């Protein structure tokens, strides 16, 4: 239930009420309407982590790259390559 899935924001509907701001988010081939009120800075093109229809975190690209670099040092990165 704490499962959260990263997806990419494709379009944003800027409702006047910040509680209702939402976006269409693509998870691979699946698109869902997602509430954005917890990530007010998130915009089109950003990756967000979505839990029960609500984006709970904007995924930090620099930090993701840093994790990949650490895994590369550990020799794990080859396993991630297709």
């Amino acid at each position, binding site marked *: *239930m*704490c*499962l959260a899935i*990263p997806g990419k924001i494709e379009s944003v509907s800027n409702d006047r009420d910040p509680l209702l701001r939402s976006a269409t988010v693509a998870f691979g081939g699946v698109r869902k309407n997602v509430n954005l009120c917890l990530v007010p800075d998130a915009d089109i093109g950003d990756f967000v982590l979505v839990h*029960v229809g609500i984006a709970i*975190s904007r995924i*930090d690209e620099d930090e993701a790259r840093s*994790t990949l670099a650490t895994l590369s040092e550990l020799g794990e990165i080859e*396993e991630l390559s297709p």
Partner: protein
Amino acid sequence: MEVCGGQTHGLVKNGIQELLPEGIQLIHGPGCPVCVTPIELIDHAIELATREGVILCSFGDMLRVPGSDKSLLQARAEGGDVRVVYSPLDAVDIAREIPDRQVVFFAVGFETTAPANALSVLQADRLGLKNYSILTSQVIVPPALEAILDDPDSSVDGFLAAGHVCAIMGLEEYEPIAHKYGVPIIATGFEPVDLVQGILMVVRQLESGQSHVENQYSRAVPTSGNTRARDIIQQAFSVTDRKWRGFGKINNSGYRLKEPFVDFDAARKFGLTSTDTKSDNDCRAGDVLKGILKPISCPHFGNKCNPEHPLGAPMVSSEGACAAYYYYSSINETI
């Protein structure tokens, strides 16, 4: 101990336990909200589902969990209006679309889900809905970690903290626990490489005699968490004592709706009171949730208890440890 049941599934599904060197043992934690929800609340949900004019909305995981006499799925088969929703906000939409029925959302969850449950109440309030309420079973992680560490049967040397809980709450509240009990606590993600890196970070701290909080999952977890999410939680909820299945009452381990929102509290709205529960089967969920018993060491695992006919919640929840072993692990393994 990996705290979150999602992490347990990642570890078992990917065979990570079998690859670890001798001396590193993973103990599966209580981070499965469906599993720790007490039977009493499941009975309340079933009672509501069978009332005239009530639509009971729930996450799908809850439906097969046995209550005292039946599950929500059986209540639905007997005519109860039980609807599975993806989000609490979907339940608000149902309330908006069907104004002459009372819509109750079974709001289970840890801190990850608390903002969503809170937001559903704030939205319903904003929309002036009088036919929406939540049956709250919101629990919070740090008091449970302390309960585990205080248990004399526990032998946990370090924690992989639940990454998505930390995405909301941040890391600060774990520092006092790491310091007090001398255990490393690593906020960890859910991919196989995240889990392996989290384990490595715990081991490195233990080998160098350290015990502090670190962040493996920094791409999704800012140190301070999500302040806006915590604001929304604080608008709707205050901290309260909660009963956990397997643990009993843990002080300050959950949320309840604050005074301005009591009209959205299903327990109050429908006059639900404490009832006797019965659990006449031999489910050992409590020991599994505390990490004292491995699922495959339970005498009922895979025979009397399976996902089709579960004795308890850990066998049916998508985050339950018993379900993880049932689906992904060899029954002959001896971990």
